[in-house]
């Protein structure tokens, strides 16, 4: 008996799904009759999808789950067979052993030659057999790879794609060692400046048109096309136009070869040296899932990471390139107490003592909505200890209708759910300013904001008894701090953010923070532990798990159980 792999979704109440039974490399596989297409609409399940559900990945270049299917690369050609039907009874013809008789696909005009089907676009039919490893299938792949390579420059040693190039990978897996090609290669434009962030090498291009389809059908900017004919075909931006939409760099990700390169990343780093860390973009409230590529504590690139509930496979260029500040030389590296360099233990001991003196109602906290949920939770606990007013600073811009949200804070909802703000974000700030002016507020804690830009000027800050500031980069506020506590960028720590749609997502640490900078949750833990009676766990998992017990919206969540794509929380 062949093993049976079912592709039924493992949800609690599986809806009745009409299935089709096919064979993939001799293995019986039961798959849904329809599956979502690139737009999520149900369409007849394709051979490629069925094979994937059967555990067989069919090599492909032009096909992409999130793009319209065009079937041009021919890499996914696979030999197949279909049951022979009795034309009169419409029933399958059986072999002597009772198994259905299968007719292998052949060329109609040359019945001795197998005919492949492009699995990306060919729907399965009951009883179909997919021969993803047959000699004929392998020969078709070898031939397509040979065709793709005859005019390719084979400049892998200096190609940015090397190491993550599908031409390289498939050549190893499916290619042949030699080619009969003895002609002169086609030469095409090199280092074509397509736009402000993209450089194109037309000779490396295999003309899969993923970039063209992405910008037309996903980004809504019909900026790219193909010019010339046949082997001289070249991808180009429309004459006089720049390929400059805010999603252009996604084409670099989906380019299966080294044709489209990011000007930012080009010639900077061999990809095999990069450590990949699952993280989140912090440039707006969408919370695009990303992979941070870093080497030796230097970040080299952000790339989008698939999350159907958030960003599909994409991210905007502005978010992607918003990482350079993390490595700025003027990062806050030292713990400071009244302008003097200090140590964490000394500063926290002194600060703890100072806070212990603070009367109820004399403390206020302004916590940026770009701090992690765990940090905001700890700050709220601290605030409760002093009956402190808390608030965040709103930060907005125009939404683009695709991924960029109007909310430019990455954790506005986390700040709301932890109780840092309610009603209207920022509404408390004038009252806190007034409190300082009247002398009611004597202690101010500021995390991740330059409050001098939001109505609490330097003269007000100077009138405080105690000003505690944690930040990443220097500002007028950090310069006024009595206690300066250098914090971390998201890439330098772990934590969670809640996006604008209420998706709680976690991110991991990619690089070390500079100098003495520490993740804020760590020293906040110390502060809260000293400042309130109950014990705060000293691990992030512990802080998180305690937080979810106290905040109803997070009820039932557990750090270890939040997958790579996060969990929905009620807003």
């Amino acid at each position, binding site marked *: 008996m062949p093993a049976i792999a079912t592709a039924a979704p493992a949800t609690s109440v599986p809806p009745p799904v009409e299935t089709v039974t096919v064979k993939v490399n001799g293995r019986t596989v039961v798959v849904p009759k329809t599956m979502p297409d690139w737009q999520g609409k149900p369409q007849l399940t394709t051979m490629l999808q069925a094979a994937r559900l059967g555990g067989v990945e069919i090599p492909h270049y032009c096909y992409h789950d999130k793009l319209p299917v065009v079937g041009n690369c021919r890499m996914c050609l696979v030999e197949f067979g279909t049951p022979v039907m009795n034309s009169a009874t419409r029933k399958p013809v059986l072999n002597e052993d009772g198994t259905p008789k299968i007719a292998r696909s052949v060329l109609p005009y040359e019945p001795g030659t197998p005919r492949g089907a492009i699995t990306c676009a060919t729907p399965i039919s009951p009883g179909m057999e997919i021969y993803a490893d047959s000699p004929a299938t392998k020969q078709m792949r070898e031939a397509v790879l040979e065709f793709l390579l005859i005019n390719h420059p084979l400049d892998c040693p200096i190609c940015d794609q090397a190491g993550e190039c599908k031409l390289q990978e498939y050549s190893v897996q499916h290619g042949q060692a030699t080619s009969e090609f003895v002609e002169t290669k086609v030469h095409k434009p090199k280092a074509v400046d397509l736009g402000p962030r993209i450089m194109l090498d037309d000779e490396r291009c295999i003309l899969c048109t993923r970039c063209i389809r992405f910008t037309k059908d996903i980004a809504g900017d019909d900026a790219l096309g193909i010019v010339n004919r046949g*082997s001289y075909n070249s991808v180009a931006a429309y004459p006089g136009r720049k390929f400059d939409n805010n999603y252009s760099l996604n084409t670099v990700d989906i380019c299966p070869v080294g044709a489209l390169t990011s000007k930012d990343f080009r010639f900077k780093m061999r990809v095999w040296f990069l450590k990949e860390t699952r993280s989140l973009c912090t440039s707006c409230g969408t919370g695009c899932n990303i992979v941070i590529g870093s080497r030796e504590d230097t970040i080299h690139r952000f790339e989008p990471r698939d999350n159907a509930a958030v960003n599909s496979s994409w991210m905007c260029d502005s978010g992607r390139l918003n990482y350079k500040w993390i490595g700025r030389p003027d990062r806050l590296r030292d713990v400071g107490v009244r302008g003097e360099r200090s140590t964490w233990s000394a500063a926290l001991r002194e600060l703890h003592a100072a806070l212990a003196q603070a009367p109820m109602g004399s403390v206020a906290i302004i916590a940026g909505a770009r701090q992690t949920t765990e940090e905001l939770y700890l700050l709220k606990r601290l605030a409760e200890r002093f009956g402190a007013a808390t608030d965040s600073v709103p930060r907005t811009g125009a939404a683009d209708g695709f991924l960029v949200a109007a909310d430019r804070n990455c954790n506005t909802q986390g700040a709301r759910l932890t109780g840092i703000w309610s009603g209207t974000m920022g509404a408390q700030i004038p009252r806190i300013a007034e409190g300082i002016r009247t002398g009611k507020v004597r202690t101010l804690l500021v995390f991740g904001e330059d409050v001098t830009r939001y109505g609490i000027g330097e003269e007000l800050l100077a009138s405080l008894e105690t000003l505690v500031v944690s930040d990443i980069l220097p500002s007028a506020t950090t310069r006024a701090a009595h206690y300066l506590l250098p914090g971390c960028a998201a890439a330098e720590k772990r934590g969670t953010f809640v996006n604008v749609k209420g998706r709680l997502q976690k991110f991991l640490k990619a690089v070390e923070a500079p100098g003495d900078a520490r993740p804020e949750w760590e020293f906040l833990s110390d502060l809260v532990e000293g400042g309130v009676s109950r014990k705060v766990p000293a691990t992030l998992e512990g802080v998180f798990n305690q937080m979810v017990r106290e905040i109803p919206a997070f009820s039932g969540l557990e750090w270890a159980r939040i997958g790579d794509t996060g969990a929905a929380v009620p807003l």
Partner: protein
Amino acid sequence: MDSNHDKQIQSLLCYRYTIGQCGTGEKIERKSIESSIAMPQELKLILKHADEPGYGPDIGCYLKHGGYETLKKALKAPGRELPDGKKLSAQEAFRGDVRTSGLRGRGGAGFSAGLKWSFVDRSSGKPIYLICNADESEPGTFKDRQILHKDPHQLIEGMVLSCWANDVKLAYIYIRGEFPEGARLLNRALAEAREKEFLGKNILGTGYDLEIWVHRGAGAYICGEETGLIESLEGKRAYPRIKPPYFPAVLGLYLCPTIVNNVETLCHVKHIAAMGPAEFARLGTPNNTGTRIVSLSGDVQHPGYFEVEVGKVTIGELIFHENFGRGLKPGRQLKAVIPGGSSSKVLKAGEVFSLKRKGADGQMIPVDVPMLDLPYDFDSLQSAGTMSGSGAVIVMDDSRSMVDALANLAEFYAHESCGQCTPCREGALWMAKGLHRLTHGGGRKEDAAYLTHIAQNIQGRTICAFGEAAAWPVLSFVEKFWEEFQARGEADAAARTEAGSGANSNLKPYSYA
């Protein structure tokens, strides 16, 4: 029969004896030749008037010759009741007529026109479009241009009938860019037809509305491929679509059900309406009904276009008969025939094919048929491993180098490959480069196998039939003239050895740019 004719028959017989090493025997050959001598002649259905002196493309002339009478009758025709009591509308009945007439598409594939119409999705609620494919681009083909230039109203009448039968309200004529005069004449004819109420709103007072627009191509062979044509008509690059899912009958122009028919096919629709399907089917031979216009070119004395009953004339007759090609040029021997446009597989002089024929007892029996005795129809040529395609017969005599001829064809296909899918894009130019090398002193002994290897990796693996179109000439030329290809490569290799030069040192890079 004039003396010239006798000479031709003589030359035909001589030719047969010279190359006649087939196992069919002399008697059979003689008989087949004799029987065909009396028969072959043109039967002009579509080109009935086109070449008559004084016949012009204006509507007055067309009407004087009975034009649009068929349309008038058809639009007034009542429905039809079948023997089983089922009632058919006039349109349904006519669609059935086209199917029973046996009409097969004249553009290249020879698919049943009626069957194609029957695939149209009539339940989608979307408009149904009809497109006349007037992109006649297959090298060797010059039949549609005769109709377009000399009798455009016949095409329009055929189109209006076809549109009416298929509930089409908007139709297009996609005409190749190289036919500016054809486009001008068509536009004038359409204006005339509109004026006479054969086109536009409320045609002939029947309440039926139809508009036809002319769309000019911009000079690309691939626009003749029906889904490439549709893309082009939509204003896009003419990249053929994948099938499935984009079968024109379901997801055609603007993703609506669409019929794409060749110029000649649509003209035949008019004649099916005029003479009835049974009468039409009596023309030609079973399963190969009607007439078709053959474009005869190459090394014959009398090249031109000839409208013949399908299957009633053999290839040999087309080349040698007084009514057609009138034989080869003096002193020449036949070498090869490309029977259905440049993409069809070449036939070699002296080849014999085993075809299935109905014997006296009604059983199908294999019969050996020499190449020249192949009836010029869809099925016989398919049985002979090639196709009648667009009806273009290209004759090559012994003065021709098959290597040079193939290099020429390969250059065409490399230039015309749209470049959408990998095997054709890379393979077509690769073959052209190899053949350029072989014809410019850089040949190698292994080039015959090299070219075959490339072509085999193209055919059957592409989005559209262009893959076959590019591969088949190479596969058939090289296979059937293997020695000639090998000899050329060997000669080059020997010359290089003598000169002491490297493999390709005398070659310049090959580029169209």
